[in-house]
């Protein structure tokens, strides 16, 4: 009996911890967003972060999208060829890439690369008193460090996803034309016929939300890191794990909202 009660108590504590954490994150995000419309604005930080996310993440996102598009084409072919439905492959590739693979893979790549870097940078600033130094110099650390990163994450990821969409389709095209002997013009025609503005738009909306979540997790965990190098390491891990889980959770929720009807 005591064992069951202990289990329920433990479960309750875990739920309360999650609710508490969600409240703290929401408050942190609300404070950071309130600075979006209140001067002073830190344009240099915003631009630097935009370049860091949008430009320097391009190679990893591009390669991931290119190969994923190719893999989708190859896997679809092995399945669809049995039913002589190869013509559907172009449609499958563009649907998968624009609706899911583009936003999710780009988001996971950026979470691993940029979310971790944000958390490590802000965490190091925390444990080396740089954040306290900002406060002593009439600078609100959330306004200076967090707000530009949230804005940059929200703006940069849709751009990356647009690139991922194009390269994912190119990956599928390359595999189908170069390896599976599809007609290039037929593949392009089928791709254009299957392309829906709604799919691309929802993918970009997802990307903006994912970008915000990745930056939020990176900033939140970095900002609250404690205890030197070990604390910064723990914060970085927590930021990437939390961002990845949130990203997949929100992917499901957004897919349900936009495509379940």
């Amino acid at each position: 009996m005591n064992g069951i009660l202990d289990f329920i108590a433990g479960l309750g504590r875990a739920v309360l911890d999650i609710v508490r954490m969600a409240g703290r994150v929401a408050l942190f995000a609300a404070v950071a967003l309130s600075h979006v419309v209140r001067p002073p604005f830190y344009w240099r930080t915003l631009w630097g972060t935009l370049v860091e996310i949008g430009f320097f993440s391009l190679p990893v996102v591009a390669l991931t999208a290119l190969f994923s598009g190719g893999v989708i084409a190859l896997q679809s072919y092995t399945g669809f060829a049995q039913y002589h439905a190869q013509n559907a492959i172009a449609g499958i590739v563009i649907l998968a890439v624009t609706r899911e693979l583009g936003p999710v893979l780009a988001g996971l790549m950026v979470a691993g690369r940029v979310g971790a870097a944000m958390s490590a940078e802000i965490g190091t600033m925390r444990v080396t008193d740089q954040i306290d130094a900002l406060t002593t110099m009439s600078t609100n650390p959330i306004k200076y460090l967090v707000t530009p990163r949230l804005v940059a994450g929200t703006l940069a990821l849709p751009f990356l996803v647009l690139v991922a969409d194009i390269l994912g389709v190119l990956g599928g095209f390359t595999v189908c034309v170069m390896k599976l002997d599809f007609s290039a013009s037929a593949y392009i025609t089928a791709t254009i016929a299957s392309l829906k503005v709604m799919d691309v738009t929802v993918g970009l909306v997802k990307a903006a939300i994912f970008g915000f979540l990745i930056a939020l997790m990176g900033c939140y965990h970095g900002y609250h890191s404690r205890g030197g190098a070990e604390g910064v390491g723990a914060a970085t891990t927590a930021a990437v794990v939390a961002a990845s889980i949130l990203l997949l959770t929100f992917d499901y929720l957004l897919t349900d909202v936009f495509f379940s009807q």
Partner: protein
Amino acid sequence: MSDATPKIRIRGLKKAFGPKVVLDGVDLDVMGGTSFVVIGGSGTGKSVLLRCILGLITPDAGSIEIDGVDVTTLSSRQREPYMARIGMLFQNGALFDSLSVWENVTFGLVAAARAGHGPRITRAQARVRAGALLEQVGMDPAVGALSPSELSGGMQKRVGLARAIAARPEILFFDEPTTGLDPIMGAVIDGLIADCVRKLGSTAIAITHDMASAQRIGDRVGMLYEGRLIWQGPPSTLFDSGNPVVDQFTHGRREGPIKIDVRS
């Protein structure tokens, strides 16, 4: 403002972290234009005291008055004008890694201008000003182009000092200014601090457990022990205070009223 009114007046300051009481009713007056050095062992709350005055930690009880205004009752926005009058040298310099040395030095000036607490300053003007400030702390202005990670510990401290004095603050805080430096560089930093404080006419509070540094910087010295300032006096009496706790600490004796918990 009367000369008799302390620039900084602290009464009954208390702070605990869970069951650990760090500050247990600190009373302190620092007169304008003077330097006060707080000494004490590791973990006795020296940094917590400084962070409470700076508003980085909220005290549990007590008041901290700057020019007669209790700053513990102010919101962070109301505090900003006071912060613009304060300079701080952090223990490890706390220079911003992502900025060059000159941008670090003038960060406070630019930030104060942005927040409307100081005159407008362009990047070109800031760079020139940074050069002058670096010269003031005995550095070549060319160092301004470097990144903080390219500097030695002593140079980082000097850049931190240049940043602290950039806005010609009325109040300066120094957190362990000589920690991690060799004795000669420690003396150089102390000399620069004493020079800057004198030239600016600032009020200064420094915390240290370096007795030589306390004597070089301070007009008065106080010892923080078990959450309270148990002794205050001129630096000349530091090694002959008449207080057994202070004497044990300043002479570095193992035996005495201060018990160190040493566990293998």
